[in-house]
């Protein structure tokens, strides 16, 4: 059988289980397991993903269950990992690559930008690359240098890539299944400090796969709208809760997908309030927030009572563990920004 043909499910679909407390890490692991069981062409590969199950245990047990050819400990070379994954995808497999930490994806940048993003276009659609690149990203876990980068702005500016990031346990599962099922390459950014966040949840098979490219309104509000994604979603929800004390009713939009970008949902939410703050962890200058703010302004200008403001990481290299709390956008900084939305002129 050619690997280009998606394999038949190797085992029957599990019976729907009752929801139970599940971490995002477990949901991601389940998504990989279910995808591999459902489709023999899904291959997991990366540094330490096999025997160890990954440094965050996202691939735990997969090598034992599916064999080392399906869940492979590669040599230590990120360009080689992604480059060979490109070749595997060319042959018809669906590789799921793990980059151990965000900053360690940089050696693979050329393969990502010059090949992963372009192969379909280069070949007039003849050679799509159904590749998922999992990248744990962001800070807040006390990691030493190079372990807390947020690199999404590099990827979202690269046409040909989808860029998604979950903020909930449920989305972690659904978006990862969707990413693996996609015929386009997806950069799947995992907010590493949410790995241990929990929810009552269990996987449904056939998977509830949300389409990539849909934002979700996590909270409706009437005063102003927080637009955010990934690790900053819980922070924004917390800020919205705290804002009630100040008399503000804040909405929160979780983008989930940076590319494709769901303009309709964002624009509708912002038009409803006339004020918006974009929140993310990566450096602000040239970050995702710039695009989001510019785009909101283009679409909603006459509905805006104040400029769209941004709350982001400072324009500095990611700080050492003992100082990172000063860098990360927290509740206070978000509320300060909301306070600057020129209420007097409303």
């Amino acid at each position: 059988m050619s690997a280009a043909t998606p394999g038949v499910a190797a085992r029957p679909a599990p019976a729907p289980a009752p929801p139970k407390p599940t971490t995002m890490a477990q949901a991601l692991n389940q998504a990989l397991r279910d995808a591999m069981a459902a489709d023999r062409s899904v291959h997991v590969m990366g540094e330490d993903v096999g025997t160890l199950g990954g440094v965050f245990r996202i691939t735990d047990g997969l090598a034992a269950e599916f064999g080392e050819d399906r869940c492979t400990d590669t040599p230590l070379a990120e360009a080689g990992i992604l480059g060979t994954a490109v070749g595997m995808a060319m042959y018809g497999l669906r590789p799921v690559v793990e980059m151990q930490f965000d900053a360690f994806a940089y050696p693979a940048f050329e393969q990502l930008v010059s090949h992963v993003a372009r192969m379909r276009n280069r070949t007039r659609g003849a050679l799509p690359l159904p590749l998922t690149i999992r990248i744990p990203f962001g800070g807040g876990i006390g990691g030493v240098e190079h372990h807390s980068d947020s690199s999404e702005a590099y990827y979202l500016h690269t046409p040909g890539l989808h860029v998604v990031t979950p903020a909930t346990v449920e989305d972690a599962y659904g978006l990862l299944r969707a990413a693996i099922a996609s015929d386009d390459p997806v950069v799947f950014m995992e907010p590493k400090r949410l790995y241990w966040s929990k929810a009552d949840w269990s996987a449904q098979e056939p998977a509830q796969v949300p389409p990539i490219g849909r934002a979700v309104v996590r909270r409706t509000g009437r005063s102003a709208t927080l637009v955010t994604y990934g690790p900053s979603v819980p922070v924004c929800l917390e800020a919205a809760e705290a804002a009630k004390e100040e008399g503000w009713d804040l909405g929160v939009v979780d983008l989930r997908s940076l590319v494709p970008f769901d303009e309709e949902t964002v624009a509708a939410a912002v038009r409803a309030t006339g004020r918006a703050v974009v929140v993310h962890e990566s450096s602000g200058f040239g970050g995702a927030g710039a695009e989001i703010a510019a785009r909101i302004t283009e679409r909603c200008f006459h509905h805006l009572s104040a400029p769209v403001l941004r709350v982001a990481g400072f324009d500095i290299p990611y700080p050492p563990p003992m100082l990172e709390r000063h860098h990360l956008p927290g509740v206070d900084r978000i509320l300060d920004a909301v306070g600057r939305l020129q209420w007097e002129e409303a």
Partner: protein
Amino acid sequence: MTVLDTPAWRPRTDAAPLMPDPEPFRLLGTPEAARLDPALLGELYGQLVRGRRYNRQATALTRQGRLAVYPSSTGQEACEVAAALALGAQDWLFPSYRDTLAVVARGVDPVEALTLLRGDWHTGYDPRATRVAPLSTPLSTQLPHAVGLAHAARVSGDDVVALAMVGDGGTSEGDFHEALNFAAVWHAPVVFLVQNNGFAISVPLAKQTAAPSLAHKAVGYGMPGRLVDGNDVAAVHQVLTEAVARARAGGGPTLVEAITYRVEAHTNADDATRYRTDDEVAAWQAHDPIALLERELAGRGLLDDALRQRAADEAEALAADLRTRMQEEPRLDPAELFAHVYAEPTQQLREQEAMLRAELEAEQQS
């Protein structure tokens, strides 16, 4: 018991069988050449003559503005042709940007092979249908692709070998290293062909490496390295055929260094007189791959007028076809720019496409 008896240290591969013979392998003009199949030599001859003509025609097309650029493989036809012919139909070829000729020799439509260099699109042929990867412009980046594809085929139980081509300059890139290492660790059915043509644009080999030969790099990955006279088409063909057979039989990857020479400038845009002498070029032209084969054929009484004529005719037919078809303006649809970025265009791309269409309409109306 010493440290070295412990579980973690075992004598690994023996290095000796991996080491290349420092004297490049040759067949033409040697006694072994007598054993070569006349039919094979005839086919190689036809392909070389055709290849040379193709290079000449493509270069002419650059002067007529029909190609944006052409990196000629004149002088390197033996490697180009042998690479294509060493593969079976089910195998994959991974060419570098200079290897249009190998692509054509493998059977891809010569016009489609030139799409990139003509500039109407990036790749003109269907890689899956032809089992030829796109010509790779970023040097050495195609090598890990070849390894991944070969590995995918192997774990799928399919009988597929990948042959990847790269230049001497390309061996300096990290991708070269990572690809060879993955191939060796995975025991992937892949053959790496380094065409050492003496230069990377203007940079001579001595500024590129201090190694005894590029083939010596093989031992550091645990695969065999072979050095071959890259202008001896019979030798290159034999070495590659053996390496492909070895890969097919589960023997793992091989690194082949073919020593050859880029007779023309780097591309039509380059001025090679800035970095090398006419004497050097002339010396290599005296060892031209076609001339070497002709001498062999002649020595064995195989170079008759019929063979010459057939080769010349086929070459002219190819060139004429190319000339004619390249005179036609390519069909261009600017809206196609948005068609293949994703399986489904995003909303933003649809808007941009609409904008471009409106502009084009306005242009036509004015």
